[in-house]
């Protein structure tokens, strides 16, 4: 019976902790714009995370893009150039100008949420 009691306790903690993670633990004050949502969709259907990371989640073929549009090294112009033309390692995905703008809007949103890190 002790084992049953331990497992029920652990499962209860897990359920409570998960609920907290889904709500207060991950609240974010910055809202995603409609354009950024479009960008996120493009990011996903093109499987960008296979080569790039956001907050360390993703592949290592390309650089982490969490701060790509919000730092001097990258910036929106640089990102747009890469999206429209590809690079030495990155294939040309033939994005339209509107699609590139949407992905930039998404990456800018991600970069803005990282403000606690850059501070």
């Amino acid at each position: 019976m002790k084992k049953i009691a331990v497992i029920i306790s652990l499962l209860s903690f897990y359920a409570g902790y998960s609920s907290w993670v889904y709500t207060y633990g991950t609240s974010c004050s910055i809202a995603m714009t409609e354009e950024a949502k479009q960008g996120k969709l493009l990011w996903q259907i093109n499987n960008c995370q296979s080569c790039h990371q956001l907050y360390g989640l993703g592949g290592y073929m390309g650089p982490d893009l969490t701060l790509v549009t919000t730092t001097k090294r990258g910036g929106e112009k640089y990102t747009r150039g890469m999206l429209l033309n590809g690079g030495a390692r990155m294939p040309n995905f033939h994005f339209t100008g509107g699609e590139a703008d949407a992905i930039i809007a998404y990456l800018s949103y991600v970069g803005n949420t990282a403000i606690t890190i850059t501070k």
Partner: protein
Amino acid sequence: MRQHSIAYRFILLGFACLLLSVSFGLTASLQYLFPHFLNEQFSFRNTRPIHVFLAVSWIFACVIGIIYKYIPDVAGRALYSGKLARVHFALQTLTIFIAVSGFCMGYFSGREYLEFPPWVSSLIIVYWLLFAINFLMTIRPKLASAPVYIWSWCTGLLFFFITIIEAHLWLLPYFNDNIIRDLTVQWKANGSMVGAWNMLIYGTAMYAMEQITGDKKMGHQKISFAFYFLGLTNLMFNWGHHTYIVPANPIVKQVAYIISMTELVLLANILWQWKISYKKSGNTSYPLAYRFFKVADTWILLNLILAIAISVPYINQYTHGTQITVAHAMGATIGINTMLLLASVTFIFEEQLHDAAKKSIGIGLTVMHYSLLIFWVSLLGAGITRAIALYEGNYFAQVSRKIMPYLVGFSASGVVLVVGICLIAFSFIKTISEKQLED
């Protein structure tokens, strides 16, 4: 033999996935070294998900096959429904085919490790339900008196369902439209899903060890349950060490750090068990299976040290998002998961293996172990170099050049690793196929 036919089909399916996975893994590693290789036709965004998906398929197909083999023996009754198991097999094979075809044609969901379109997951859930019905109706577990491996299998099953549903919460705008929530929940689901398959694998390993040693008390000992509950706690709460850099509530990081450090207890236990097992070695009627277990022990030790190190926030700050994370993942999936699965498969077939096959598997194991060591160290070297280069403010192209020698070592040892895997896989495929034909 005939009553286990479905189990053997799953194991064969697992080996087919393993061989395909390492083939795509080699292609992906070539694309790392030569970025223009197939870059426009079949780029890294195709090869990586195929490699990862097939590696996970190897683990699941093989562990399911082993469990199908063990449960009639454990329960002392025939499998509840052979027909249900055959439908399960057909559905799982079809799902693997659909997902891989989709990756080849460029259909992605863009989610880490679960990159197939979300509707494919509904097929996965259906065949896992069929498996769960067959498992529960055959075992009919009475948990209060059940051995630890039955607890482990039940936990693995339960958490597979929980985590695959959790991994699809992003389909709801509440999760999808908040990057902090989306990433945190994604890590949470993925981390715990790995814990779920570990539970299934460790269950099979514990059952095989009990049979090999003949110690029937092992599965009922308090210490076994203490480590099971420690493992379960880590499954539930340990995932957060992947999210130290995500600006979620700091409590997530604190919980993860505290739980991660409980792994020190596991580490101490492994070191203690090692000391004992060395004294006992050579005293078994399954010497080849025992060798796999001992190699897996080495990898558990190495990976645990690495896991504890990268769970320390100060270290994690530099190592997260580098090849050190890949070393941890590869060390765990190849060094621990694959070695334990091969140990169980060897235990099942050791008495039926010809001498030539035993020799081939023995050589394969040695080749696998040492090439994996070089592979793992190369990844650590690449990760440390990358972390230092990024800290020094190098551009990505400069970082890539600096880590190149390590990636050459990684790819070269990867080729040797594939040779070792092939030696083992083909020996088992031949043996299992011959047995199937005889029946």
